[in-house]
């Protein structure tokens, strides 16, 4: 197996992009990544794109071919593959690209993610996202995605010490970071009061506990590590790439408040990289809801079960804390174009490890981690990157 490096990365701004189409989102991110890598289109051996539901959001399938075409690569006949695992589509796209390069089958590979969510009404998008859970036995009876995570929160708060204010602090912290990220959908700081006074979506979760509906795309370029310096002076090495699955329904899990797939993917990643949590300088976790960040910090092993709320309130996960979490603003403030999120997490870590993260830069960041969840935890992808 060959060592793999990220040699370029690009990302559109995230938000409600009424003037931009699905295909133009992808092209914009792709060009940014290729320019960053100094790679020409004809050098690309393969293209992977994470996308959850173009079929429901824009009534378009066959996304691999579409984006290869509009990226101007159709006449080169490069293989283009769509990867789908709900909100973890981007993380799996990155992992497929890593596997392609590591195997020796392909050298210069683009891993991308794209989602165009605002071309349907909000009720339709809620319904589409519910397809990430079990349509027959969760969605059918009226379970929404916020509703499922709300049931995790209800279970968690009945068993562990987590206050409503500590939960709100996750959103406050992520908005603080988002306000320092030029691509973020929300660049305004908020207070705990903002969260607690926002409308209830699914008790106990309120509007400001939830990640938004977002349009956006992100792309990165991968190469074998031993070729990386042909393209860049600052290659970012892929130290671990892991993935795990679990039951599709929340109700079938061993433990409602533990994402066992996060635990498994995290442990495998640390083993693969030969590292421990103490070696990680920053981590991008899948905070589709505030409770999801609390669970992620614990399930990845950064603290024991029941401690993440207190640590968040104490600032341990803040930009200047011991283990900064979601420096990009996370899904909450940076936005959550579902198929693009896993790639955006890698984009953020690459910026941080190169020292290009501006006002949210973590000094001396050398090793970063990404954690991307599909559904309520039925798929988890974890990556560790280092310089």
């Amino acid at each position, binding site marked *: 197996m060959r060592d793999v490096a990220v040699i370029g990365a690009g990302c559109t701004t995230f938000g409600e992009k009424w003037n931009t189409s699905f295909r133009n989102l992808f092209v914009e991110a792709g060009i940014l990544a290729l320019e960053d890598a100094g790679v020409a289109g004809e050098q690309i051996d393969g293209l992977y794109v994470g996308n959850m539901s173009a079929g429901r959001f824009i009534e378009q399938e066959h996304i691999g071919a579409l984006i290869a075409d509009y990226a101007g690569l159709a006449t080169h006949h490069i293989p283009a593959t769509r990867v789908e695992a709900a909100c973890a589509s981007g993380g799996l796209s990155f992992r497929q690209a890593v596997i392609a390069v590591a195997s020796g089958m392909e050298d210069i590979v683009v891993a991308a993610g794209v989602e165009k969510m605002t071309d349907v009404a909000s009720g339709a998008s809620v319904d589409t996202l519910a397809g990430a859970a079990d349509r027959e036995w969760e969605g059918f009876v*009226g379970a929404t995605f916020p509703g499922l995570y709300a049931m995790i929160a209800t279970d968690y708060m009945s068993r562990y010490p987590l206050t409503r204010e500590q939960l709100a602090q996750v959103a406050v912290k992520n908005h603080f970071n988002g306000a320092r990220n030029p691509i973020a959908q929300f660049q305004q700081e908020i207070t705990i009061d903002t969260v607690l006074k926002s409308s209830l979506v699914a008790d106990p979760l309120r509007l400001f506990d939830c990640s938004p509906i977002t349009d956006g795309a992100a792309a990165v370029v991968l190469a074998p590590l031993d070729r990386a310096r042909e393209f860049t002076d600052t290659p970012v090495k892929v130290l671990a790439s892991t993935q795990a699955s679990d039951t599709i329904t929340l109700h079938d899990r061993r433990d409602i408040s533990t994402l066992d797939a996060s635990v498994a993917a995290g442990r495998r990643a640390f083993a693969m990289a030969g590292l421990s949590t103490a070696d990680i300088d920053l981590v991008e976790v899948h905070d589709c809801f505030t409770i999801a960040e609390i669970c992620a910090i614990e399930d990845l092993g950064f603290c024991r079960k029941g401690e993440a709320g207190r640590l968040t309130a104490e600032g341990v996960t803040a930009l200047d804390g011991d283990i900064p979490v979601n420096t990009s603003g996370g899904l909450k403030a940076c936005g959550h174009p579902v198929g693009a999120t896993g790639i955006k997490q890698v984009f953020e870590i690459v910026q941080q490890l190169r020292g290009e993260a501006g006002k949210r830069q973590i000094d001396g960041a050398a090793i970063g981690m990404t954690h991307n969840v599909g559904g309520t935890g039925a798929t988890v992808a974890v990556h560790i990157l280092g310089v």
Partner: protein
Amino acid sequence: MSVARFWRKIPQRYNLIGTTCTTCGRYFFPPRSFCPDCRRAGNIVDYKFSGKGTVVTHTVIRTASEQFEQMTPYVLAIVKLDEGPRITAQLVCAPEEVRIGMRVKPVFRKIAADGDSGVIYYGTKYVPAE
């Protein structure tokens, strides 16, 4: 949801017909045709659940998908059936009434409908049993 897709699940949705593995004694709802524990050594047969159970966790849905928008707010819960399996279901009770550990029993109810002239979906909801 197409008529056939709903129709083929009527035994499960109306009458809580699940399955059990006679090799290991584990119960499945919704039914599984393959035992994850015994795998090929398993022997799966139908089993009718009493439906009685206990609330494991819950929420109140206030923003719903299109089919359920008219019903908000409604209580959603994970219920642990007495035989072991857990299911997700609506509770027919006031939002302030639901609590973890509450005993519940099944009732036959309309779940949703495809607009004004489409299929009406029936199924099982739960009510407090105490």
